[in-house]
């Protein structure tokens, strides 16, 4: 089944997303950007340009570059709002045969849905390129206040672009879907959408129909089609320019080059002041006069920005109040407030929303992408993908076995999606060890004793061999119901033993939480303990290797070296029980250095160096 593309067709920018593995994911366009300017143009030689490329050539071709077409779609030419908007754009508009609006692009008069279709067509083509499959279906979002004509026109735009529009959904509804509010009972949600050029506020209610997922209904909506982040940018630009003028007497706004640099600097400052309390606007060579080049260097504080933005925030809050009054709810009834639009990253705006509603607004989903993601989720629901055929669970705590020194070696990390299976090769800790005990533990602590013990079993009948040589394969398998089966197999004899543990997920949420907190609290102490055990294990291995080497090479090495090694072995053995990691490590290193001389000596005697046992069983933590 083909995928359904979710499209946020915005006034200033558009974005698209798709369901992948049950999650909505933003698709980047051909230019590698996550959002695309909603701009279309016909170039000098008649070529159609859409997005960033269309915007770049706008000043060379203002009459044929169409932007903010969303303000015109589905409207009639004679509406006062349309007249006002049409007067503000550089491209030509006229009344169409049916009373609708038409815009001129190149030699052609086009309906707004045809222009929107160009934008949708580019999104479709870019999505296809990225996914490597044909896209024929889409869910497109529109503002909650769009009437039937505007919705129908948007649907037509999709059709012209070669997309079957499976559904037109409200932008606030999409945002609520992205936050998963369709799954919560009796939620009353406010979507506060402060975009680049428009402000929308919507009051939603999740209505549950039986056992089904809830439908999201718009209870009231309000907004200002000419209020947005751009207004705040303009204020900042004016402030910087006037500060500069005070000092230099030059108004840089009149110079298009300086103006461009000012625009960019203002936006950068605004973004920086969302996280910093002060920023520096630094534009060298912004202009020049008789005295030579002039530079602009101005400090801007967050307080200044908030002062400049205050009037716009106040307007948005006043509209919000109006929307609340028009809804059947009181401010106190609202369960969640979602923020949409990049401008809501401004701390002052979040604070104003929090003050009005008396609760922290939610912006855990990227406010620039949340609408497109919600559209993709709607597409997933329509395409049957979101309906959970398979409810995939995860294991809440890590599962592992106890290895040498009492260490808990994890085989399956917590949060691993099940069903899953993992195996690892272990070996023996002592020479001629014929059985290994498999002790299964659950939890995040480093030492087995600190974790929950789930069960034990013994694999015996391992043929006698030097330590580290036998290969015991331990396999953990967790099925879809969380039932754990642990199997241990001796690779040499194929002898195996297994255990089935049903209660591995029978922990309460509180238990799991406590165990995780425990692990966090003891992380540092556990790490120290681990280091000590590791150092002791290494020391033991070094002693073993040294003794073996002395036996294997008897008579081939100088007597004084043998004495020296024996002294070092005694030293390591003496330190092995010490609590001081550094001491153990130093003694082990001394011994290893001495030991390397044995190989040198043996090499000199032309004998090939002996291979260390078990060196090929790579991940060999040795079970006790």
């Amino acid at each position, binding site marked *: 089944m083909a995928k359904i593309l979710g499209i946020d067709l915005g006034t200033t920018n558009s974005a698209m997303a798709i369901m992948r593995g049950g999650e909505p994911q933003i698709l980047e366009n051909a230019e590698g950007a996550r959002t695309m300017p909603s701009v279309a143009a016909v170039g000098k030689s008649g070529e159609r340009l859409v997005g960033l490329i269309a915007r770049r050539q706008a000043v060379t071709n203002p009459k044929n570059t169409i932007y903010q077409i969303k303000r015109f779609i589905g409207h009639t030419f004679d509406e006062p709002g349309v007249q006002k908007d049409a007067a503000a754009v550089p491209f030509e508009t006229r009344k169409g045969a049916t009373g609708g609006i038409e815009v001129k692009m190149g030699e052609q008069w086009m309906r707004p849905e045809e222009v929107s279709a160009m934008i949708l067509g580019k999104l479709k083509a870019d999505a296809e390129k990225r996914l490597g499959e044909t896209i024929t279906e889409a869910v497109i979002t529109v503002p909650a206040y769009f009437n039937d004509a505007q919705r129908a026109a948007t649907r037509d735009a999709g059709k012209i672009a070669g997309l079957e529009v499976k559904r037109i959904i409200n932008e606030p509804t999409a945002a609520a879907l992205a936050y998963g509010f369709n799954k919560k009972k009796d939620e009353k949600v406010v979507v506060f959408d402060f975009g680049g050029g428009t402000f929308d506020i919507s009051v939603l209610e999740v209505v549950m129909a039986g056992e089904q997922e809830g439908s999201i209904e718009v209870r009231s909506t309000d907004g200002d089609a000419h209020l947005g982040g751009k207004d705040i940018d303009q204020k900042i630009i004016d402030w910087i320019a006037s500060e500069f003028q005070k000092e230099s007497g030059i108004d840089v706004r009149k110079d298009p*080059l300086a103006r461009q640099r000012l625009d960019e600097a203002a936006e950068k400052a605004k973004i920086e002041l969302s996280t910093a309390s002060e920023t520096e606007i630094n534009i060298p060579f912004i202009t020049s006069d008789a005295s030579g080049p002039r530079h602009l260097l101005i400090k801007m504080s967050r307080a200044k920005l908030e002062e400049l933005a205050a009037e716009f925030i106040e307007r948005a809050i006043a509209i919000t109040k109006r929307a609340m009054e028009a809804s059947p709810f009181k401010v106190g009834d609202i369960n969640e407030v979602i923020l949409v639009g990049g401008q809501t990253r401004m701390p002052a705006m979040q604070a104003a929303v929090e003050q009005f509603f008396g609760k922290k607004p939610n912006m855990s989903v990227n406010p620039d992408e949340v609408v497109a993601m919600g559209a993709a989720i709607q597409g997933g629901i329509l395409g049957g993908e979101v309906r959970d055929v398979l409810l995939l669970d995860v294991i809440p705590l890590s599962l592992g076995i106890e290895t040498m020194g009492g260490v808990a070696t994890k085989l399956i990390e917590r949060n691993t999606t099940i069903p899953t299976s993992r195996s690892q090769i272990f070996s023996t800790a002592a020479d001629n060890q014929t059985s290994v005990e498999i002790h299964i533990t659950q939890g995040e602590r480093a030492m087995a004793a600190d974790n929950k013990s789930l069960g034990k079993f013994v694999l015996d009948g391992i043929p006698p061999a030097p330590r580290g040589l036998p290969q015991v394969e331990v396999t953990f398998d967790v099925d879809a119901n969380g039932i754990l089966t642990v199997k241990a197999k001796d690779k040499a004899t194929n002898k195996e033993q297994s255990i089935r543990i049903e209660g591995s997920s029978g922990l309460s949420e509180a238990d799991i939480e406590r165990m995780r907190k425990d692990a966090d609290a003891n992380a540092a102490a556990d790490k120290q303990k681990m280091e000590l055990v590791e150092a002791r294990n290494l020391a033991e291995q070094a002693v073993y290797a040294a003794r073996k080497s002395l036996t294997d090479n008897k008579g081939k090495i100088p007597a004084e070296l043998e004495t020296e090694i024996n002294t070092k072995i005694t030293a390591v053995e003496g330190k092995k029980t010490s609590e001081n990691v550094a001491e153990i490590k130093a003694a082990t290193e001394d011994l290893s250095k001495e030991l390397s001389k044995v190989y040198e000596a043996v090499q000199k005697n032309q004998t090939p160096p002996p291979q260390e046992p078990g060196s090929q069983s790579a991940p060999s933590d040795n079970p006790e």
Partner: protein
Amino acid sequence: METSDDEFVSEEEAEEGPALIKRLRERLKKAVGEKQEYLEGWQRARADFANYKKEEATMHTDREARIKAQVIEDLLPALDALELSLKHEDTPALRMIEKQFLDALKRMGVERFGAVGEEFDPAIHEALAKNGEDHTITEIARSGYKIDETIIRAAQVIL
């Protein structure tokens, strides 16, 4: 997956002949339907995973290029200022600094572009103003930079 008892066909003594066949047919129909549903879900999950792996592989190379482009983009304002200061005062020292800068970028595969006299191309140029009727660039306000064929920043130009 849990299996409930009613999914097994128990032998009910009273039932025989057509009734039993009918019941079995229904069970079979249900089972085939479910099989199809699970098969599709499983295929979809497998396909998603295969695609994810492929994408992750390309993303890895992409990511490296992106991080590089991001670092370079952040450095460009300083280079722009240097370029502007050269326009005002062309000293050998400044030229040498600029050359060092550009040489270092070149080693990373980064190239400066945009020149007076070129034909305007919105794929690589961003127009700030248009004075004549011609589509030829008359002034470079800010140079563009690309890494291989990827545009890090379009050149800002005046026609």
